[in-house]
């Protein structure tokens, strides 16, 4: 794999993470517990959708085969997506969503911060914009994790269970593969080992405030970065792509 191939794959992964998490949040539109959180969720989904579009547009330019952002989002098969397993996990209760967001976003924020100083100026610009959005997401969702963890006995038990269940999907974020290594070497990209260290420290501090227990590191699921997804993913993609598949080229 040369540097250009790694960069294209890396940018697509960034776009895929943003798009798939946006799609999960879109599923929650109109079912959040109150109007204010409803707006917050929709804002977050739009932030991610905007980031996905920027990454896909750049990927389209890098690829140079005439594909556009819609082709990446709506006309690829499920095994062509390279998002983390963590962001595709189905929505459960409110605490599941908050936990999923805290785990992913506290990683993504560090990844974006590192990308703002990479040597590819387009990626650095997109990362700078996204980082501002993510700083707010992390603040908002971490506060919620603290409220739920340090809330009632019921909320504490349920959100601890969310954490224990989702924990197995976090290892993939920090396990570098050829794309990560080649991109980082060629474009001065993120050092995943350093990010993992800071992520653990940040998370431990949030969990301490939330009176939650950091799960023990054990077996970790992986495969999202290679296109091997969990069983829920096909349904997400089917719903997301339905319109373009049923009415190819439809616009409004």
């Amino acid at each position: 794999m040369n540097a250009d191939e790694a960069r294209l794959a890396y940018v697509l992964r960034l776009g895929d993470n943003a798009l798939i998490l946006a799609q999960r949040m879109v599923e929650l539109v109109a079912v959040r517990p109150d109007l204010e959180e409803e707006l917050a969720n929709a804002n977050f989904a739009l932030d991610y959708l905007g980031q996905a579009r920027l990454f896909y547009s750049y990927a389209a330019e890098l690829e140079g085969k005439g594909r556009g952002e819609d082709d990446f989002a709506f006309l690829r098969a499920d095994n062509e997506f390279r998002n983390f397993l963590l962001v595709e996990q189905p929505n459960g209760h409110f605490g599941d969503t908050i936990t999923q967001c805290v785990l992913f976003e506290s990683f993504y924020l560090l990844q974006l911060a590192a990308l703002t100083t990479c040597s590819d100026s387009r990626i650095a610009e997109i990362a700078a914009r996204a980082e501002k959005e993510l700083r707010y997401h992390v603040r908002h969702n971490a506060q919620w994790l603290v409220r739920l963890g340090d809330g009632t006995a019921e909320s504490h038990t349920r959100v601890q269970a969310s954490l224990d269940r989702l924990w197995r999907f976090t290892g993939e974020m920090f396990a570098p593969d050829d794309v990560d290594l080649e991109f980082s070497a060629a474009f001065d990209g993120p050092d995943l080992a350093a990010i993992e260290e800071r992520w653990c420290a940040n998370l431990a501090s949030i969990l301490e405030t939330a009176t939650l227990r950091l799960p023990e590191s054990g077996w970790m699921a992986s495969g999202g970065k290679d296109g091997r997804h969990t069983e829920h993913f096909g349904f997400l993609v089917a719903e997301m792509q339905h319109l373009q598949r049923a009415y190819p080229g439809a616009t409004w």
Partner: protein
Amino acid sequence: MTQNKEWPLYEVFIRSKAGLSHRHAGSIHAADDQMALDHARDTYTRRSEGVSIWVVRSSNIVASDPAETSAFFEPAEDKIYRHPTFYDIPDGVENL
């Protein structure tokens, strides 16, 4: 949750740009002060309406009593000399 308790009401004040004062934008529900600030941000500044937000518990606002309107405000109505309308403004002065 066995009951669906309403969160307290907060009043939201937004400053649209530096130099202007905060103006009342509306109200939101939130469980605590930090959440109130987040909700105000998400509800009232989605279209770049502000550079600064204040939130305050509605119950902490002391308001004038509508029944006291005559005692509070009417005495000022016939005191026109309190308005600076009796000065001759020299020509060419736009702002005094």
